[in-house]
């Protein structure tokens, strides 16, 4: 027998709880940002620093998604697991079909590690809000994510919320398919803009693979595989201590909550478009794979070295945090040149708003209702 609080009771308890919260609450004080010096000694190093910065900001947008509620044992396993590991595969948006693989590991309470195949590592301790980004060139950057509490959005919780809001029944049976030698049954779930294909081992009922596609944002497709729960994960995997022999970029990134704004994000987009030879916007704007994207572009000679030498690390960091603060956003700026007419590149729905704010390639902003949104 289950009980559910009625509207009146729900409202009463929440009101009293918020009142108690308010009475003990002091306005959070945010430290003024330190003055950083960016150490840029070599062409690769300066790009690596930027990559590390973006990884610090991007890590918290990691998308977690697994099977539908209909596959209760899978969802329950994820919810109750003390550790979980999986591989996240995203399109690189370089136009060449290349994909980026990131291995994700999570261990209670609140330790997250992401690793790309090239050795870009980002580690977050959600208990303290501290993180470290390590690049294989032998450098690291430390970060402090204390502004994540400030927003009204779900931020990194958005994907987990999406997991819990999956419908009890799939919309379509996809039939059978062999994935990595495993016979799977597939199910499709459509939720607005997002289509999720879930593949489950026909024999064991284990989750084998999840595919996500956003109709309005091609290029944000993801595949999640190699999912395992409750395996042994050594604490050293989540250590925030820099590896021996690695050197700091001399940057410690701190968020202050007040500068992670749309304006900061637009400034960063403008800067990025001016800092690459194609005058296009970045391939992606969030996610730990950003580090690899930056390094790949640098090695392909697409970035204007001199401009990257003088990049403001704090602007990059806060622009990334602006994105992950949003609860409902899409990015379509990959390959789009700045000032391309009538081309939306980014849209999001501010917390508490029914309308979307849409940023165009000329970096103007319009507010649109849901039915006016770009398709």
């Amino acid at each position, binding site marked *: 027998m289950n009980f559910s609080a009625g509207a009146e009771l729900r409202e009463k308890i929440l009101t009293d709880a918020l009142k108690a919260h308010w009475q*003990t609450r002091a306005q959070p004080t945010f430290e003024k940002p330190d003055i950083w010096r960016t150490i840029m000694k070599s062409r690769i190093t300066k790009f690596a620093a930027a990559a590390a910065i973006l990884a610090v900001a991007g890590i918290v947008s990691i998308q977690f998604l697994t099977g539908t509620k209909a596959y209760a044992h899978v969802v329950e396993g994820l919810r*109750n697991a003390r550790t979980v590991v999986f591989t996240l595969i995203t399109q690189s948006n370089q136009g060449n079909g290349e994909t980026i693989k990131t291995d994700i590991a999570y261990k209670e309470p609140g330790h997250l590690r992401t690793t790309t195949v090239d050795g870009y590592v980002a580690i977050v301790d959600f208990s303290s809000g501290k993180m470290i980004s390590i690049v294989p060139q032998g450098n690291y950057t430390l970060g402090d994510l204390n502004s994540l509490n400030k927003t009204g959005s779900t931020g990194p919780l958005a994907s987990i919320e999406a997991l819990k809001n999956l419908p009890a029944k799939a919309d379509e049976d996809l039939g059978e398919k062999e994935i990595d030698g495993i016979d799977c049954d597939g199910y499709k779930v459509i939720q607005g803009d997002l289509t999720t294909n879930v593949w489950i081992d026909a024999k064991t009922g284990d989750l084998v693979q999840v595919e996500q596609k956003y109709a309005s944002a091609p290029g944000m497709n993801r595949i999640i595989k190699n999912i395992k729960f409750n395996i042994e994960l050594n604490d050293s995997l989540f250590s925030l201590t820099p590896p021996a022999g690695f050197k700091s970029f001399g940057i410690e990134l701190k968020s202050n909550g007040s500068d992670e704004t749309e304006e900061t994000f637009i400034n960063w987009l403008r800067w990025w478009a001016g800092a690459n030879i194609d005058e296009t916007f970045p391939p992606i704007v969030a996610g730990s794979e950003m580090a690899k994207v930056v390094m790949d572009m640098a090695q392909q000679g697409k970035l204007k070295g001199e401009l990257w030498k003088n990049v403001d690390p704090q602007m990059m960091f806060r622009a990334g945090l602006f994105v992950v603060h949003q609860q409902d956003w899409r990015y379509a700026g990959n390959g789009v040149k700045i000032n391309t007419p009538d081309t939306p590149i980014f849209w999001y729905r501010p917390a508490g708003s029914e309308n979307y704010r849409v940023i165009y390639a000329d970096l103007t902003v319009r507010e649109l209702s849901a039915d006016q949104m770009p398709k």
Partner: protein
Amino acid sequence: MIEDEILKWRFRQGSKEALCRIYEKYLDYLLTLAVCLSNDFNTAQDIVHDVFVRFAASWKDFNQRGNLKSYLTTCVVNQARDNSRKTRRQPDELKEDTLIGSESDCPEHLVTGNETSHQLNRAIAELPDEQRETIILHLKGGMKFREIAALQGESINTVQGRFRYGLDKLRSMLNEEVQK
């Protein structure tokens, strides 16, 4: 799991939004638990109300490293025990006026269940406090025996014994009902 860790972290930072999310996530679960422990819906409302108000005010000192759900469950259990000590009532079956079907004219709460559930609830209400608490926490609260042992300040063996004897007694009571 992951969400709870982030919610705890944000809550510690003073986030009102995190508090609201925790509230929405666990309100009904804690209310159900409180009803089962206290055998009275009105008392259960008070329990959950007090737990959330105290929780909301605790953000500055909140330093819970373990499972958030277990923590809130413990708060409800402790509050239910305090209430029980104050009233010193014998365990009573759930009052009939709190058992309301989905077509109820009472807007305050919704009960899902049937007559079997009611019989089970009545039987649970007749168990000794420790056995009832153990069964509810394990079956309803999803707590492991070692967590219940820590909460009750007993050994795991004692807790498992309470669970076993409680179930045996429930079976016996329900079988008597069937035979009637």
